[in-house]
C-alpha cells in the first residue's frame, strides 16, 4: 500500500511556526489591556487609599487638603442620579415604544432612527454647549441642578432608546399575536404583554446609561457646575457640583496632597459605578428566566 504523501512538510512547518508566533503576539496584545487595567487600579488605590476616611463623607471641599471632603459632590451626584433616572427612563422608553411598536418603517422613521444613532456619537461636550445655550442662558435656569439634570438627560437619551428598542424587539411576535387575538388594543398589548417581558433589558440599559452619566465631567463644566461648592443644593435651582468635577478640580492643583485626594475621590466614584453595574447584571440575571 502506498504511503500517504503529506505534502511539503517544510512549508507546513513554516506556516505552523508563524501561526504560533502570531498567536503569541496576539496574546501579548490582549494582555496589554489586562495590564493597563491592573496598572490603573493599583496606581489609584496606592495613591488614594490612605486618604479614605469618614471625613471624606462629612467634610465639604476646602482649600486645606487635610480638611477637604466630598460631601457636596457626593450629594450632588446622588441628586443628579435620582432626578435623571425617572426623567430619562420615561422619555427614553416612551420614544423606544413609539419607534418599535407604533411607527412603522417609512422613510421618516428610518431618518429618526439614524438621527438617534448619530446623536449617540456626538461628543459629550457638545451636549454641554447645548445645555449652556438653551437651559442655562435661554431658559434662564442658570447654573443650576435643573440645568444639569436636563442636559445630562439629553446626553443619555440615545443610549437608553437604543437599549430599550433592543429589549422590545427581543419579545417574540407570537406574544403580541396572542394578545391581539384576545381583542386587545395596541396600547393594551404593548403595556400588558410586551413591556413586562422587556423591562429587565430596559432596566439594564437604563442603569448602564446612568452609570455613564455620573462619570461625565465636561458637559457639567459647560453648564457651570461649580468647582468649589461648600454647601448642599436645597432646591432645583441651586448651584451644585458632582464627583467628577471635584476630582478634576483636585487633579488640576499642583499640590501632591490634592492629587491624593483626587485618587480617593476616584476610588469612591469607581465603587459607585461598580455597585450600579452589579445591580444591572443582577437584574438581568434575575428576570431573564421569566422571558
Amino acid at each position, binding site marked *: 500500500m502506498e504511503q500517504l504523501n503529506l505534502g511539503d512538510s517544510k512549508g507546513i512547518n513554516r506556516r505552523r511556526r508563524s501561526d504560533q508566533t502570531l498567536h503569541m503576539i496576539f496574546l501579548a496584545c490582549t494582555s496589554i489591556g489586562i495590564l493597563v487595567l491592573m496598572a490603573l487600579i493599583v496606581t489609584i488605590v496606592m495613591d488614594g487609599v490612605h486618604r479614605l476616611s469618614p471625613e471624606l463623607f462629612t467634610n465639604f471641599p476646602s482649600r486645606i487638603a487635610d480638611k477637604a471632603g466630598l460631601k457636596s459632590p457626593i450629594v450632588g451626584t446622588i441628586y443628579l442620579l435620582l432626578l435623571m433616572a425617572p426623567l430619562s427612563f420615561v422619555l427614553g422608553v416612551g420614544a423606544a415604544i413609539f419607534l418599535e411598536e407604533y411607527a412603522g418603517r417609512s422613510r421618516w422613521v428610518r431618518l429618526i432612527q439614524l438621527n438617534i444613532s448619530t446623536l449617540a456619537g456626538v461628543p459629550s461636550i457638545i451636549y454641554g454647549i447645548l445645555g449652556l445655550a438653551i437651559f442655562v442662558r435661554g431658559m434662564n435656569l442658570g447654573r443650576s441642578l435643573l440645568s444639569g439634570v436636563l442636559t445630562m438627560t439629553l446626553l443619555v437619551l440615545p443610549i437608553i432608546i437604543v437599549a430599550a428598542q433592543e429589549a422590545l424587539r427581543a419579545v417574540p411576535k407570537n406574544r403580541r399575536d396572542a394578545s391581539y*387575538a384576545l381583542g386587545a388594543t395596541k396600547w393594551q398589548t404593548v403595556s400588558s404583554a410586551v413591556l413586562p417581558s422587556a423591562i429587565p433589558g430596559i432596566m439594564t440599559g437604563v442603569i448602564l446609561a446612568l452609570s455613564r452619566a455620573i462619570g461625565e465631567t465636561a458637559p457639567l463644566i459647560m453648564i457651570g457646575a461649580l468647582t468649589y461648592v461648600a454647601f448642599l443644593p436645597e432646591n432645583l435651582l441651586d448651584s451644585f457640583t458632582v464627583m467628577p468635577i471635584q476630582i478634576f478640580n483636585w487633579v488640576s492643583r499642583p499640590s501632591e496632597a490634592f492629587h491624593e485626594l483626587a485618587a480617593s475621590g476616584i476610588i469612591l466614584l469607581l465603587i459607585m459605578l461598580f455597585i450600579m453595574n452589579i445591580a444591572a447584571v443582577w437584574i438581568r440575571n434575575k428576570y431573564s428566566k421569566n422571558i
Partner: protein
Amino acid sequence: MESIIQIKKLNLYYDTYHALKNVDLDIPEKTVTAFIGPSGCGKSTLLRTLNRMNDMIPSTRIEGSVQIGGTEIYSEEVHVEALRKQVGMVFQQPNPFPKSIYDNIAYGPRLHGIRNKAELDQIVEQSLKQAVLWDEVKDYLKRSALSLSGGQQQRLCIARALAVQPDILLMDEATSALDPISTLKIEELVQELKSKYTIVMVTHNMHQAARVSGQTVFFLNGEVVESANTDTLFSTPSDARTEDYISGRFG
C-alpha cells in the same frame, strides 16, 4: 345548521400576490369545519381574515364580503377588538404569556373590563374546565404558565381564548407542534366544545380532519375547490383534485 359565517367573492392580495381567489363559503354554526390543503394554499390566510389578524400585515388588500352573525366585519363601523373577542384564535405554537396560569386566563377578561376577583376566579375555573385542564392545574394556578408541558400549554391557550366567551373559535394548525397523545386530548376537547362553539380549524393532517370535523373545505392555490360534509368529501369527493389530494397523489 344555519351558517354563522358567510364569505362571498373574497379576494385577498399581499401587494400584487393574489393569495385568495374568489372565495365563496358558508360556515355552519356549532360545528367543526376543517380547512385542508397543501402548504401555501391559503387556508391559514382565510382563517386569519375571519378575525382580521391579517390587518396587521401592511401590504394586505381585501375585496369582497365576510359576514359573521349577519354583520360585514370589514365595515368601518366594526371595532376589531370587539370582533376578536367574539372570534377567538389558537395558534400553531403554544404562546402563553410569561405570567402565572391564572393571569394568563384572566388576561382576556381583564382587557375587557372585568376586575372583580370573584368573577375572575369563576371565569378561570370555568375556562380551565372547558379545556380539560382544571384538574391538572387547579392547585398550581399561581405557577408560571411556562412550566407546563407543550400539550398543557396549548390547552391553556384554548382556555385563555374561551375565557372571553367567544362564539367562534379559530384553530390554526393547533396540534401540529404537539405529540400524538396531546393531539388526541385536544381532538377530544374539540368534540366537547362544538356543542357550544363554532370551530374552524386549519389542519395539514387530513386524517385529523376526517376524525374531528363535520364539514371539510379543500383549498388549492388560494381557491376553494370543494366544501362538503366530511364523510361525503372523504368517501365520494366530487372534484378530481380533491380525490388526488386525499389519495396522496400530491401534497
